[in-house]
């Protein structure tokens, strides 16, 4: 397999983009990545999008967006594995370049979520859970993660304040990210007194509904060297699945798909969790970040809350998690999130992250998760 590098990244300000359509957001972002890379064409493209059909009533967006980007007739593929769609788009592009099938591939993600009301958005997101065994009984995503939070608190003594500390840390990081949807700080008290969503989770434990896109250009390392760009290699890729319904898992606090995808990616890269300098993980709810930290081996089982509380996951901590602000502060346009994580890790490894830069970061990891953890995609990156 050929060595693959990320040579261009693109992301615009995320938020409630009332004046832009899905295609506007996408094209703007993809062009940024193409410009950043300096390539004069692409051979193929992948688009992660969870539910453009429900959110904007448009399927067949692979062709639509290739056309609007001015790239038709290049092959274009839409990828869907719920909120991990973006991460999977990268993995497929990585395989295509690595195998030699294509040289320059645009990997991207997009979601336009605010064209529907809150109820419909909740329904669309709910389709990432098990319709027959979960959703038909009335549960929504905050409810599923609330169950996981209660289980984690019960099993390990994780506290309500420790959950809040995840949001506080991510908002602090996000306040230094000009592209974040909510670039402001919050306090533990703000979180604990915010509107209740699904006990024990409150609104400031939850990632928001966001419009946004993110894009990256990947190519073989030999080609990257000719482009005179800082080279960030993709050295590991892992992808795994789990029971979609949390009732079918042995332990509600354990994300088996994240563990398995992480293990594959670490092995491929020849790295251990301790070798990684910076992590971008899927904090769709504060409890998710804690469970992910444990499944990726950043801390022992049950020790994540304490690690966050002690500041270990802050930008200046020993295991920096979500310097971008995470899904919590940066926003969560579901299909785009996995690629936005790549954008942040590439910025970190290029040392272009400004005030939220993890000093001397050379190895980075992205973890992008679908639903309540039934799919996970993990990638390991290295600055040459």
């Amino acid at each position: 397999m050929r060595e693959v590098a990320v040579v261009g990244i693109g992301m615009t300000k995320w938020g409630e983009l009332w004046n832009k359509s899905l295609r506007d957001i996408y094209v703007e972002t993809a062009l940024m990545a193409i410009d950043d890379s300096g390539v004069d064409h692409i051979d193929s493209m992948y688009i992660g999008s969870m539910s453009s059909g429900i959110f904007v009533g448009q399927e067949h967006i692979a062709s639509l967006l290739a056309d609007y980007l001015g790239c038709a007739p290049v092959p274009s593929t839409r990828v869907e594995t719920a909120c991990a769609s973006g991460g999977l788009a990268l993995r497929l592009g990585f395989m295509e370049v690595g195998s030699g099938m294509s040289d320059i591939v645009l990997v991207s993600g997009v979601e336009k979520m605010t064209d529907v009301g809150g109820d419909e958005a909740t329904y669309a997101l709910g389709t990432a859970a098990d319709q027959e065994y979960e959703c038909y009984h009335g549960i929504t995503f905050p409810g599923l993660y609330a169950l996981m939070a209660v289980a984690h608190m019960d099993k390990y003594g994780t506290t309500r304040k420790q959950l809040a500390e995840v949001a506080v840390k991510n908002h602090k990081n996000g306040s230094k990210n000009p592209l974040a949807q909510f670039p402001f700080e919050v306090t533990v008290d703000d979180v604990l007194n915010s509107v209740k969503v699904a006990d024990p989770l409150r609104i400031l434990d939850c990632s928001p509904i966001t419009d946004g896109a993110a894009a990256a250009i990947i190519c073989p390392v030999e080609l990257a060297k000719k482009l005179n760009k800082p080279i960030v290699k993709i050295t590991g890729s892992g992808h795994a699945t789990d029971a979609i319904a949390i009732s079918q898992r042995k332990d509600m606090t354990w994300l088996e798909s994240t563990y398995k995808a992480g293990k594959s990616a670490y092995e491929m890269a020849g790295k251990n969790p301790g070798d990684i300098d910076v992590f971008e993980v899927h904090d769709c709810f504060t409890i998710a970040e804690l469970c992910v930290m444990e499944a990726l081996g950043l801390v022992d089982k049950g020790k994540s809350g304490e690690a966050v509380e002690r500041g270990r996951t802050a930008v200046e901590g020993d295991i920096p998690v979500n310097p971008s602000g995470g899904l919590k502060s940066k926003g969560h346009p579901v299909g785009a999130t996995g690629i936005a994580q790549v954008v942040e890790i590439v910025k970190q490894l290029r040392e272009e992250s400004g005030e939220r830069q993890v000093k001397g970061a050379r190895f980075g990891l992205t973890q992008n998760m679908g639903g309540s953890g039934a799919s996970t995609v993990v990638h390991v990156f290295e600055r040459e």
Partner: protein
Amino acid sequence: MEGIVGYGAYIPRNRIKVEEIAKVWGADAPSYKKGLMLEEKSVPSPDQDTITMSVEASKSALKRAGIDPLDIGAVYVGSESHPYAVKPSGTVLAEALGATPEVHTADFEFACKAGTEGMFVALNLVKAGIITYGLGVGADTSQGAPGDALEYSAAAGAAAFIFGKDKVVAEVLETYAYMTDTPDFWRREYEYYPQHGGRFTGEPAYFKHVTGAAKGIMNKVDMQAGDFNYVIFHQPNGKFPFKAGKILGFSREQIEPGWLVNKLGNTYSGSSPLGLTATLDIAKPGDHILLVSYGSGAGSDAFILKVTPRIDEVRDLAPLTREILNNNKKYLEYGEYAKFREKIRKAE
């Protein structure tokens, strides 16, 4: 100079608390109270509607104006809850006031902005010299679907303003209108409850138009936020007017006198006009007031007023708005409220 010669307010005595509604729907009352800055809302009795409340408010306006109702040349009622789809509210009001038959009437509808539309037209007919006095009323018995966020705010009330050239208590120095096609809230024919676009009702709808109108009118007369003693914005919930004020540079002190929504709810077409009546109740001669309404669909009307010394002569000729709001309240349980609002009906 043309302006308001008399004003009046009316609010039904029934109230329902946020807790009482939240209890029924299993909602978290503290979250609603904090999120929307609402405590309770007014509820009309079964025999009250937009017309009866318009009559009450207009009678108070007539008392303060001290004019002959036959001198009123125009009667305009703005509401999104006119009791009849076909048959005017304005004719009943004009008849009840003794202003018929030589009077022009019309019913206005523009979501929560209909009240200031009637005021705008009545004022400008006076300015044009076509009528001596004109009456503009904003009144609503607004409905929120059971369990919807709107149910915590949709309230009832009316405010009436008589415009003329003499006996003016507040001169209207300037008017301004700002609107676009923005579908944030609607109710189709034959539908009982309105629908809304959730968070779309905020930034691209309310805030865009309210701040657009406020900036537009202030630019027109070269005034700044600090030049006003008071400002009244449309009050769909407690938070929005303060946020709009913050964007525009107004202080809490300028907003609070006309901010009734925490105890009143959103009276739709009556909302910002009632805020103006409460502000006139405490204003002093020479004070400058900015009024900015908002109606979904969407648009804002803005008025700049300057209070005259006559305010002190007429203020106590009719009930003060905060007295109506705070006195003689009767709290309803949800069942009684549901009956009053015809959310449940007795079998025929």
